[in-house]
């Protein structure tokens, strides 16, 4: 067991530092320039530092899995505040799905441009009458000549108003059974048959969209996996959606903010962090977060070494949801009076208090997650009515 990096990695860390010293901040000092960012990411990919799991021919750096090196890169890039090559929005779900199910042509067409941010993805799974129950999807696509013609409506499509493309589930085999009726399509949203309507969240931020398809089209070649087998393709997307690393970084930064809030807020004339109730709950949250952190490390180590991750595999999303809600509530207690004031210092925390709730909805509701844990990790029998699919 070795969580440290040991001297054999010192050389690698020095290399990364050296690369950063030479490449970031950019020569002209403009941190915010998209062009500077693009150039930096390309250089980092070239050195094998970013997009390590993606083959070179699709714009990645094609490195063997190595969590120690990945962690060193993450640490040093974060210290230097260098761009992380992170794919915004749901695009990060498309890349592994395409790598698993896509044809060579599809990968070539979409992955590199996704990595550079030229293509921005929205997810098109949910519909007004099909939330977690994907079997009841109504949006349909018909193959007309060499194009799919799409009609229907998607909802809860995060960032669709800023996206260029959508990966979506559509009904292509009206007469087939529920596991053989749905296909997985990639669709360019910038066409007349597509209308995007942002839905305002309770936080006032636009985030979700409704997307209407009225004879929208996509080439026949944009079908991912077999016709009618979208179900199975989706499972791999959902798997990536539920995986933990991204969320862990987010949770750690929420926690840092929370500690800062507790230090800086006065309660009865003392910093809130000295109130034993706040202090103890803060430590309890930290205990939960440490559990998540090191179980994620453990899972990653096991995955890399082809060992069975065990029942934790299904858990990160729900665990993080609980954690975020607990953080939201403690922040509320610290913020106190300001918890009604969107113009005051509490605004960020009011929003997070609400956003922590959206986590229990997005990417499969918490109840679906519970079914998933019960059935996949614990081996409990499927519910006679439904289940996780």
């Amino acid at each position, binding site marked *: 067991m070795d969580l440290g990096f040991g001297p054999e990695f010192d050389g690698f860390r020095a290399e990364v530092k050296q690369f950063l010293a030479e490449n970031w901040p950019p020569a002209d000092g403009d941190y915010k320039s998209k062009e500077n960012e693009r150039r930096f990411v390309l250089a980092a990919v070239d050195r094998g530092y970013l997009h390590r799991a993606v083959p070179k021919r699709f714009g990645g750096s094609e490195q063997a899995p190595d969590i120690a090196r990945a962690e060193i890169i993450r640490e040093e890039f974060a210290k230097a505040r260098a761009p992380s090559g992170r794919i915004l929005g749901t695009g990060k779900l498309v890349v592994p799905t395409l790598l698993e199910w896509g044809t060579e042509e599809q990968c070539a067409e979409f992955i590199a441009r996704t990595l550079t941010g030229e293509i921005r993805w929205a997810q098109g799974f949910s519909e007004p009458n099909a939330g977690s129950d994907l079997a009841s999807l109504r949006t349909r696509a018909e193959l007309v000549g060499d194009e799919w013609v799409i009609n229907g409506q998607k909802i809860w499509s995060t960032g669709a108003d800023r996206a260029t493309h959508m990966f979506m589930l559509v009904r292509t085999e009206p007469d087939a059974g529920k596991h053989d009726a749905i296909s997985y399509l990639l669709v360019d949203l910038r066409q007349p048959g597509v209308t995007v309507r942002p839905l305002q969240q309770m936080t006032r931020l636009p985030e979700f969209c409704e997307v209407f398809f009225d004879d929208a089209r996509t080439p026949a070649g944009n079908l991912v996996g077999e016709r009618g087998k979208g179900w199975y393709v989706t499972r791999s997307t959902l798997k990536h959606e539920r995986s933990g690393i991204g969320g862990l970084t987010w949770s750690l930064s929420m926690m840092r903010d929370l500690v800062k809030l507790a230090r800086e807020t006065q309660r009865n004339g003392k910093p809130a962090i000295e109130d034993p*109730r706040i202090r103890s709950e803060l430590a309890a949250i930290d205990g939960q977060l440490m559990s998540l952190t090191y179980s994620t490390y453990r899972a990653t180590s096991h995955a890399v070494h082809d060992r069975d991750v065990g029942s934790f595999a299904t858990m990160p999303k729900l665990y993080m949801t609980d954690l975020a809600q607990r953080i939201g509530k403690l922040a509320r207690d610290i913020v106190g009076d300001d918890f009604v004031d969107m113009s005051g210092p509490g605004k960020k925390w009011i929003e997070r208090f609400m956003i922590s709730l959206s986590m229990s909805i997005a990417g499969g509701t918490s109840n679906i997650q519970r079914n998933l844990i019960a059935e996949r990790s614990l081996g409990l029998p499927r519910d006679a009515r439904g289940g996780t699919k």
Partner: protein
Amino acid sequence: MNFLLSDEQLALLDALRGLLQDKCDPRRVHEVFDGDGSFDAGLWQAICEMGIPAIMVPEGQGGLGLKLIDLAIAAELVGEYAAPVPLFGHCAATIAVALCGSDAQHARWLPKLASGEALATLALGEGDSRWLPGEWEIAGEARLNGKKRLVPHGLEADLFIVGTASGLVLVEKGEGVAAERLDGADRTRSLDTVTFTDAPAEPMPGDEASVARSIDAAAVLLAADAFGGANHCVEMSVEYAKVREQYGAPIGSFQGLKHQLSNMALAVEPGRGLYWYAAHAWDDLPEKARHAAAQAKAHLTDIYLQATRDTVEAHGGIGFTWEHDTHIYMKRAMLDWAWLGQPEKHRLRAADLAGW
């Protein structure tokens, strides 16, 4: 022993419910919520005409001379409908005038407050969650200087009842009074920061006990609002679970959600007895009133905020949108939770009052 509503009380509720059904459907609430931050003047006028703000004003001053329980059950309904009216601040301030005002202050203000001709509000909160008598630092008798936070409808109010280091004082709008509207989460009940600069103030002669009693009434009214809102959230979630189908069945037939809804109802419904009791104790059991008010405020407003969170989960994505009703209740719950200090503060106070 008789712990139920009288026929008169039931009739009052029927009438008020009829009015709210007519003039305060969810569409209207959303309109006001998305509006300029002021309240629904037409609805408020109708509520005043029905005599709700007059409930606790003595009969000799144009009021109905009824009890806090009568006002609290009306406040519950206003909470249920999330009605965008200044009922809470106005009625709490009116009670303070009735309890702490001089005869002259009574004669001058109570008739106008009972009829709604003048709008009153309570200016209590300061800095680091100082809401209660003994915590107020703002000082001055004839001329008031200082700042009060989270004052309900300070912009629209004609009369401010202000908590100061030497007791309650009465300040009229105008000279030396400046209200600045917050971007409040709850847009059905706007809040202002009110700055007093050499504002002419009249001390109110009420003693400490009367001041405390005024605050207790405000706590009970918040609790009643919270119960009304929380209960509505349960009903809304249950109704949705009956009609929304997934996997070919109403989602309310899946045990997972079913048990969540049961737990939600179980958290909320017994709170009804607590807020009734707190109102009744205020009316008739003076030695129990303070403790009960603190408990009702703490318990009900905590439960309300949690109920709104559960409501989001019960509705899925739709419950997280601005278009849905849920967030309006959540934001009202935030106000009930924070105003007068958070539940924790009132629990510790209740412990003191219990003599623990």
